[in-house]
């Protein structure tokens, strides 16, 4: 149907020249369903260029709910959200409220990746109703930068309420839910499903289930580890290979792909205990 609409528009524009200017002017307000939609509100870049290219407006929508579906509640959350959250904290300056986080976030790790420790606030609660209430209260607060909530049992009506609150107060809202709800309806403007890549464990497969744009044919692939971790793993692999070579046995499958990576582990810092010791 969307193609019919487009063809009709083109026919009109060709046949009636005075409509040309009109269709040009209206073009900005018209979203063709086969193109990626424009953001009608502010967005915050995700920090992953491959993902930005597939999102309407080029980032996480501010003032709308983004739903993240994963197999385990802790999986991939920080890898996907952390750059965006760090930007939001820098721009707005308030805390990121985590409602019902599955484990304790480690401040040192997040601080190393750009999210300061003092901009975290955790609401621990097991009851679904209390989580929803806390979420809504956090959304109504003017000083909060973003809300990340784990709501495995939320119903559609409750999610819609949160979506409205986020729209009213123009906040980043991420809701993490289990994979099993992928087929049910949701008021979220953007729905993503993240899973580990079967072929390569160092990649995240990101399926965009819902967005303002055409359905995504192939999933977006993102690195599952940050640069530092990837470099560390590559260096460890290289060491292992060298040691095997010295011992005269080269295991199959580990010959190609290893790069020499320099780690600036000795630069700066205070405690020798915190440095990395890479041994095979």
């Amino acid at each position, binding site marked *: 149907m969307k193609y019919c609409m487009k063809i009709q528009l083109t026919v009109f524009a060709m046949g009636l020249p005075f409509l040309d200017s009109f269709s040009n002017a209206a073009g900005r307000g018209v979203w063709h369903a086969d193109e990626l939609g424009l953001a009608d509100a502010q967005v915050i870049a995700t920090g992953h260029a491959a993902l930005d290219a597939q999102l309407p407006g080029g980032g996480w929508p501010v003032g709308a709910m983004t739903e993240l579906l994963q197999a385990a509640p802790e999986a991939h959350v920080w890898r996907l959200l952390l750059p965006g959250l760090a930007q939001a904290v820098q721009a707005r300056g308030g805390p990121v409220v985590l409602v019902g986080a599955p484990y304790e976030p480690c401040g040192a790790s997040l601080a190393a990746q750009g999210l300061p420790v003092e901009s975290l606030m955790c609401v621990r609660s097991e009851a679904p109703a209390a989580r929803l209430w*806390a979420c809504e209260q956090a959304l109504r607060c003017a000083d909060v930068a973003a809300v990340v909530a784990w709501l495995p049992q939320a119903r559609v009506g409750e999610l819609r309420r949160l979506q409205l609150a986020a729209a009213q107060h123009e906040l980043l809202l991420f809701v993490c839910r289990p994979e099993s709800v992928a087929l049910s309806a949701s008021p979220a403007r953007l729905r993503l499903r993240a899973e580990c890549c079967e072929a390569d464990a160092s990649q995240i497969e990101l399926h965009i289930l819902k967005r303002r744009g055409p359905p995504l044919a192939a999933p977006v692939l993102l690195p599952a580890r940050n640069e530092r971790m990837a470099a560390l793993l590559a260096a460890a692999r290289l060491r292992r290979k060298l040691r095997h070579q010295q011992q005269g046995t080269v295991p199959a499958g580990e010959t190609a792909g290893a790069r020499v990576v320099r780690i600036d582990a000795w630069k700066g810092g205070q405690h020798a205990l915190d440095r990395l*010791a890479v041994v095979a």
Partner: protein
Amino acid sequence: MHWIALRWLPEAITSGSPEAQALPTPEALGWWALQYTPHVAWQDEALMLEVSACERLWGGRLQLMRQLVAANPAPDVRMLGTQGATSLIALARLRLFVREEKRPADMPAGLPLDTLSAAREHLDLLARLGCRTWGDVAALPRGGLTRRFGAELRAALDTAWGLRPESHAWLTLPDVFEQKLELPALAETGPELMWSANRLLSALQIWLRARQRGARSLELQWTLDLKRFNGVNLPPHQQLTVRTAEPTQDMAHLRRLLSEKLALATLAAPASWLRLRTLETDPWAGASTSFLPEDNRKGDRLHEMVERLSVRLGAQQVVVPSAQADHRPERKQAWRPALHMNSSQPAKSARNDRAAASQPDAIYPPWLLPEPLLLEMDGERPCYRGPLSKLVGPQRVEAGWWGDKEEGGQPAMRDYYVAESPEAGLVWIFRERPSARFSSGEVRWYLQGFYA
């Protein structure tokens, strides 16, 4: 002398819910009037304001009346106001106004006799004497009137004509807010106290505005009606305290905190009296305004949200991390209740801790387990959702050898590894290093965090 008499008529409105008619206490209404003139007193049912010295400040009598009506402290309740040369005349005119009668032509003499409080007990006799107005009584001979009806009636008439000075006990603003109120009915549960607490809160708001202070902590106390209940001796009072981080004159926030606390409170016995007092107040600087859009975001303040969450869920459920200078990951950050965010540690140690927490090259996992999880062993290899293969490590941590019980009990001697689990992805595990003194000799592996 010029007097204004004010009266609030809660029963005058028939529409509207009973909650809307919660009038502040009479003292509080007096405190509100103190902003216009220092001479305020309650006389019978009316609040009397003596304004001869200050009416010029407010732009004349008419202007002052308009301002009084516009700034009604109880907007849901109709306020009536009249003026007069003496307090008795103003009061009599107010009574006529309430009865919706016209004012007489000659002012003090033509007023009907039942509008004079001092003549009320003698009304029948005076009517039989043929006296219907103030002027009729004032025309009676002085000596006979005093002997027959007592000195008060003659004195009141003299006062009304301005022949005698008036004396009043002027209201003053107390230094500490403390108000008591009897409940309309015995309350058995916490939420039933809320209606009367609302009246006290609106009185508190008037007091705070008059004193130009903001409330930081309040105490609500209720008197128990029973001395013994189910064989247990009861204390005479029960109370709860409400605190807020920033001084406020906004009662909506305090009301929410109070109602959340009252919903959790249990009354040991039915309560009959309610008392509210301020524990801490701060000078009120006024609300600052800004034209910049980023300063004018709509929504609550952060401390209001934190207080609201903490009061319903419990202070231990709303927490913020603070960095600590320790190498054991489970002690590297401490979770404190977000309520005490502002009462922070000294600046220098905070800066050190922050520096320790933000080393850019540390490879901590983003998720930590609250307690290290003892892993099962498959021969030599630890298992967590499948056998683990160590990728990076060891990173050696030796800490806590100085500590006593609350510092962690025993020294931590650990070798940390980044390992890969076939199902859970990258995990952070450690091996307790066997040491001669503190361990039994067997090798134990623990899971501490997830890189997922």
